[in-house]
């Protein structure tokens, strides 16, 4: 069992909670896990990243370049920022959502004819590295689950669909219930299921997945 996941996003999207949920589930099942977290300062909207490594032969809290099996990105632009960590032909599991940095918006209004980077621009660049790109509109799934702050849980559902993800689905669900605020447990479990189903639409055509019950 060996899996390197590089997780990235923007401050406030709940990357640390996502990491905690997987880590706690691993601790309970006796699976080795080591992570290196970089959330810098406590303000919102900055770049945040987590190196998550599951398996016995994982030593460093940092994934070597080109050794991440999965690049999981909660914000589309951030996917490209950490590309060097992803294996060639590794799996990209990315949010459709773009949160434009304020500096970018001020550039657009001052430079005539300039445009934002689009989600399509990002995907087309990613294709220079891998064809295994699954896109999830996590914000609308989170809204469907009844809580805009459950985008991170949507991705836990996506991960759980993967055969390569070595943590039991029930363990993840239990871990979610223990880690999120009590009144949001149902919304989070719903977000998890929506994510898992979504993975079967986009991700499972590319890589081996567990079957839906």
């Amino acid at each position, binding site marked *: 069992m060996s899996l390197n996941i590089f997780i990235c996003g923007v401050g406030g999207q709940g990357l640390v909670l996502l990491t905690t949920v997987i880590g706690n589930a691993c601790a309970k099942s006796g699976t080795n896990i080591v992570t290196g977290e970089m959330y810098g*300062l406590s303000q919102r909207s900055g770049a945040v990243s987590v190196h998550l490594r599951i398996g016995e032969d994982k030593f460093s809290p940092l994934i070597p370049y080109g050794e991440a099996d999965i690049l999981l990105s909660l914000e589309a632009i951030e996917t490209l920022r950490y590309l060097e960590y992803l294996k060639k032909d590794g799996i990209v599991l990315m949010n459709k959502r773009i949160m434009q940095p304020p500096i970018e918006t001020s550039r657009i209004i001052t430079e005539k004819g300039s445009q934002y980077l689009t989600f399509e621009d990002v995907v087309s660049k990613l294709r220079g590295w891998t064809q295994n790109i699954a896109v999830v509109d996590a914000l609308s799934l989170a809204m469907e689950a009844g809580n805009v702050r459950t985008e991170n849980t949507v991705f836990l559902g996506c991960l759980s669909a993967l055969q390569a993800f070595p943590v039991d689905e029930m363990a993840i669900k239990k871990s979610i219930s223990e880690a999120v605020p009590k009144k949001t447990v149902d919304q989070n479990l719903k977000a998890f299921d929506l994510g898992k189903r979504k993975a079967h639409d986009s991700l499972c055509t590319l890589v081996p997945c567990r079957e839906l019950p």
Partner: protein
Amino acid sequence: MILKDVLAKEKKAAFMLGNEAIVRGALEADVKVVAFYPGAPTSEVLDTFSDALGSFDYQMEITTNEKVALEVCAGASFAGIRSLTAMKSVGMNVASDTLFALGYTGVKGGLVLVVADDPHAHSSQSEQDGRFFAPNAYIPMLEPSSPQEAKNMVKKAFEISEKHRVPVIIRTVTRVNHQSGIVKLGDIKRSDFKKVRWKELNEEYTTLGAVARKKKLQMLERTAKLAEEFEKSEFNFAKQTDSDVGVVTASVSYLHLLEALKMLKLKDKVSILKLGTTFPLPKNIIKNFIEKLKKVIVVEELSAYLESELFAIAKDVNPALLILGKKSGIFSEAWEYNPNIVAKGIASAMGVKYAGHEAIAEEAKKIKAIIPDRYPTFCSGCPHRATFVALNQALKIQVAKGQEHYFANDIGCYSMWIFPPISRGDSSLCMGASIGVANGLSHVIKERVVAVVGDSTFFHAAIPGLINAVHNGNKFTLLILDNSVTAMTGQQFNPSTEFIAGGRQGKKISIEKICKAIGVEFIEIVDSYDVKGNVEVFRRALDYDGLSVVVSRRECALYGDRNKRRRGEKLVPFYVDKEICKRPYVCLRTFYCPAYELDGDRQPRISPELCDGCSVCAQLCPIQSVKRTEVKT
């Protein structure tokens, strides 16, 4: 991790952050007094102790600065009570005055001092190497590489501290504090908190002149004994092989090394000496390790601390030994390491092939050249942004009138004024220095000096500079940005908050009363969100022929939003009314709020899930097109 694991009575395996493992180790060691000033990457030590305060019997303070924190611990320790503090690298500078004295006086109850260096300056103003404090102050030092080791070392450090009657430093780096992994928990056996009678202890802790000279000799003796004891420490271990090449390493570099050897297929092909007690160093262990080697590679981040010692030791025991590290140029003293950097260094030292990581990094760099930078920025609703907008407008008017400015920044969220798109700041050094340098500048430059400091930094290190300014009649303008909490490190309480550690009621200290008591004659208190009104106040402060202080007050948006949610209040977002908006982009040109973006039609819009409802952008819009969402009741 969840708090439950830090508190767990049963001996199980838990997923823990390095900082949480430090707390767990201290709780297992029955720590009774803890004190901290927050600072990345150690803030979660404070936060976890604060959260656990209801479950265990210990005293906790969030102190005004690191020096006070260490002194709180020293006081407890003098009376035989176990204590712990944790601080970031530069916090150690502030506390070092006390540390050096404690080296002489010694302590009684175990005193453990966690010092977290920040190679790469991820969240610090420098990459300073805190290891040198240990030999300089004759204080023993342990260096963990992982959360498990951090927990074990903290626990052991209390024993070492009590046995040798000296504080013990646990020196970490960001990648240890912010590393999570599986930690095997030990027993938690807590004793009751009891006050002791000082007189019965028959102790003294003084150092000066003749007393200091006598204690210096005792300190040297103590260090020699520690060196002897560390020769047997479980925290130093060697993995011997038949190879005549060895690697000496410590801290997180050890983990990068294991990863690198795996990448290079050199696992079990070189001997490894992993050091855990890095002051005093176990010289006999090192001697034995290098005696028969032809080549030794030293893997350590920042300065050549271990490497220099190796040169000294090798001179006697193996003068022909080839020592490869920073001095030979295989590794750099700059920035943090990772498995790739270590692999490259090892490969070069061993003369083996390593495809390298430059190629892959280069290829990725080309592909991602299109993405914009994402600088740290003010949260939506942040009062600092509103203060800045008003200040910027005031400065513009003053410039038009012929007054120019020097802008002295300080340490806190407002440090981000130096980042684009604001990019303002002539200097930014360390806690409280904005006022210090303003004193000097006011003597020598023609421009009006504007210094800025936050509430927490004001209490931490800025007050002496302000007293100095009043006493010497120095003329400049000081903005005190009071957002009620120490925001940047995670909104911890400080003297500007009415709460203390664990959320208990405390006494709020009035910044303006302090200023008045000092003798500041121009002092105004404003609401950070009142941009229009504040432009006028700032202008008056800038025109004032003397020292002028403006306190811009509004609670941190993250702290305020969290409190609102707890009270069940909804955050009501604003929206841009497209019918009215003529797109002058005033909102975007002056405000830079992350909740704003342009839609496909270049029409400004506000993301409702990001908007905190602060209303400041609505005030700025010259045509009143920004409106509050109507709430259905």
